[in-house]
């Protein structure tokens, strides 16, 4: 590998690109080889102007090779290494030790923000080389520990640094603030719905998927929004993972521990949700990694889109394969779905009669397939409150979001401690093998569960999902072993709201 190194993105991974430059006599021309895309080819103009603005005049025939030659290079993040390579070859600067360069150049030599700074930082750490990057990307990179990075305001400053005239100072590592996530609305502001609130608490504690079913105006969306305020803070490892996904899209990053919360409208396409497209980018499910993916009006989504969620919900990652290659994005989400029980919305409502004919109801229910429902651990009915309850002006309705978040964080810590050896962070993500061996059951649980599985006709996956939820319930209660009462509560959230209504 040479000394001037750039990067290109492959999924959420940065691949090192060796920049080789040769300048020979002839009419001035810059020829770029090594599968550059349009943005990389156009870099010629930016690089030439930026170098000229900083007093480096290019002449002769300049051949630029981006190695490895068979890997397609994408985006404007190769501008800076190309400029440095040419400056070095024409004698305007020297790079003694291998270094990573990243950034898009303006015509006057300033550096513009690019995507992929965090993957590049991880690569620089792995290769143990310094990283030079645009100042606007400095913040996200300062959140990565152990990287020797320099924020470069413009090309002139970088060349001066490389010549040893005015050295740049390396970036300081930034601390992470633990900011309380916004509790909008606060759970104590929501009237009634104690069952749904408890389900939210369990979902937040164990990262379990949740389905809210209720009539129009019963508060499904409000409850789902309130989940945001009770999510436990991200751990360092989780924060880096979320940072990585955002950085590959060039999105702004926060330096706190708030979990992602992504709301997807039902007109979304499969590519928008799962990732892909011509240039392979992560979708909403990857942006929601380690956080919440909220699908409101669940039954209105295209069926193939919902089916596409099956595999990532199970594996916690999604592999997108296209002609241009296949990449894997992380996708460990807490899926929250909300829908009406039927098209008119009032099936099972105590006040309003349902006006749906049987076949319409049947078609509506068919949109949501069994396999998807089987992957959702907590099914909750959100009934409408009676007029008397709604009009009542009483202030507090159960514990506040802050109190619940403390309980949730406590339960999450117990889980992280328990699965540390295996490398898992929550009960929802543990594999089948660990469910059988890692979850300690009290003596009378096994026969009870067998009985319940028979009468509720639970699948194998159903049983292990019930056990995972029961483990979370026990963690919230502080029980070291899972007891019958924990399993009972877990079973209560199973297959209630939509599936059983069919019979």
């Amino acid at each position: 590998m040479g000394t001037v190194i750039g990067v290109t993105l492959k999924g959420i991974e940065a691949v090192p690109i060796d920049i080789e430059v040769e300048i020979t006599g002839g009419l001035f021309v810059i020829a770029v080889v090594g599968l550059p895309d349009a943005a990389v080819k156009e870099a010629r103009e930016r690089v030439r102007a930026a170098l000229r603005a900083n007093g480096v005049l290019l002449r002769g025939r300049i051949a630029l090779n981006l190695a490895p030659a068979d890997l397609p290079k994408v985006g404007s993040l190769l501008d800076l290494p190309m400029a440095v390579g040419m400056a070095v070859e024409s004698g305007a600067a020297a790079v003694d030790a291998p270094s990573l360069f990243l950034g898009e150049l303006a015509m006057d030599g300033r550096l513009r923000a690019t995507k992929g700074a965090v993957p590049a930082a991880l690569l620089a750490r792995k290769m143990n080389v310094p990283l030079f990057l645009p100042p606007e990307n400095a913040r996200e990179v300062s959140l990565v520990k152990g990287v020797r990075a320099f924020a470069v305001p413009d090309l002139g400053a970088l060349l001066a640094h490389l010549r040893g005239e005015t050295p740049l100072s390396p970036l300081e590592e930034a601390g992470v603030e633990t900011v309380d996530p916004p509790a909008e609305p606060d759970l104590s502001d929501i009237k009634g719905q104690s069952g749904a609130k408890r389900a939210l608490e369990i979902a937040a504690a164990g990262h379990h998927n949740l389905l809210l079913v209720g009539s129009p105006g019963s508060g499904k969306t409000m409850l789902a929004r309130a989940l945001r305020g009770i999510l436990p803070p991200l751990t360092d490892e989780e924060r880096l993972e979320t940072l990585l996904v955002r950085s590959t899209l060039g999105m702004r990053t926060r330096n706190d521990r708030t979990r992602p919360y992504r709301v997807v409208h039902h007109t979304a396409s499969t590519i928008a949700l799962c990732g892909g497209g011509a240039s392979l980018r992560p979708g909403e499910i990857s942006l929601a990694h380690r956080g919440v993916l909220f699908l409101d009006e669940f039954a209105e989504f295209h069926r193939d889109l919902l089916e596409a969620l099956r595999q990532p919900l199970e594996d916690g990652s999604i592999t997108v394969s296209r002609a241009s290659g296949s990449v894997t994005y992380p996708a460990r989400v807490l899926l929250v779905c909300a829908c009406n029980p039927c098209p008119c919305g009032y099936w099972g409502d105590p006040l309003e009669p349902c006006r749906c004919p049987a076949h319409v109801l049947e078609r509506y229910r068919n949109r949501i397939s069994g396999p998807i429902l089987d992957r959702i651990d907590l099914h909750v009915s959100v009934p409408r409150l009676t007029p008397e309850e709604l009009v009542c002006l009483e202030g507090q309705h159960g514990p506040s979001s802050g109190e619940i978040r403390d309980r949730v964080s406590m339960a999450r810590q117990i889980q992280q401690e328990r699965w540390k050896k295996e490398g898992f962070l929550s009960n929802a993500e543990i594999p089948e093998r660990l469910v059988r061996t890692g979850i300690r059951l009290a003596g009378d649980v096994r026969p009870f569960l067998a009985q319940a599985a028979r009468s509720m006709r639970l699948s194998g996956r159903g049983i292990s999902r019930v056990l995972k939820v029961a483990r979370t319930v026990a963690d919230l209660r502080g029980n070291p072993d899972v007891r019958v009462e924990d399993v009972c509560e877990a079973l209560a959230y199973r297959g209630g709201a939509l599936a059983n209504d069919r019979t």
Partner: protein
Amino acid sequence: MDHLETGRLGESLAERYFRGKGWVIVGRNIRVRGGELDLVALDSDELVVVEVRTRSIGKILPAEETVGPRKLRILVRSGKIYVEQCRWTGPWRIDLLGINLDIDGSPRMVHLPDITAGRIDA
């Protein structure tokens, strides 16, 4: 003064102009297959092929705007042939010098260095 005289006057003015800049004049009106190079000079260690355009007063377009893509292609081709003939291996470029003559005959010069700017594949 007809247009041929104007052209010759312009080339003389150009030669004086570049000498003043410290360039070494290599040749004037060099004929190669398929074209002619108005002026060839050395700007330190870079060979420069200069296209000189001279226009007297009253023309709509200023002199430096009269070189189009077709002329540029011819210049590149002729330049390559010349560079090859004299076995020059260093870098070279094509400059444009526009000379606009005022009513009293005083010249106004516009020098555009490196008009191909890497945009023509060589």
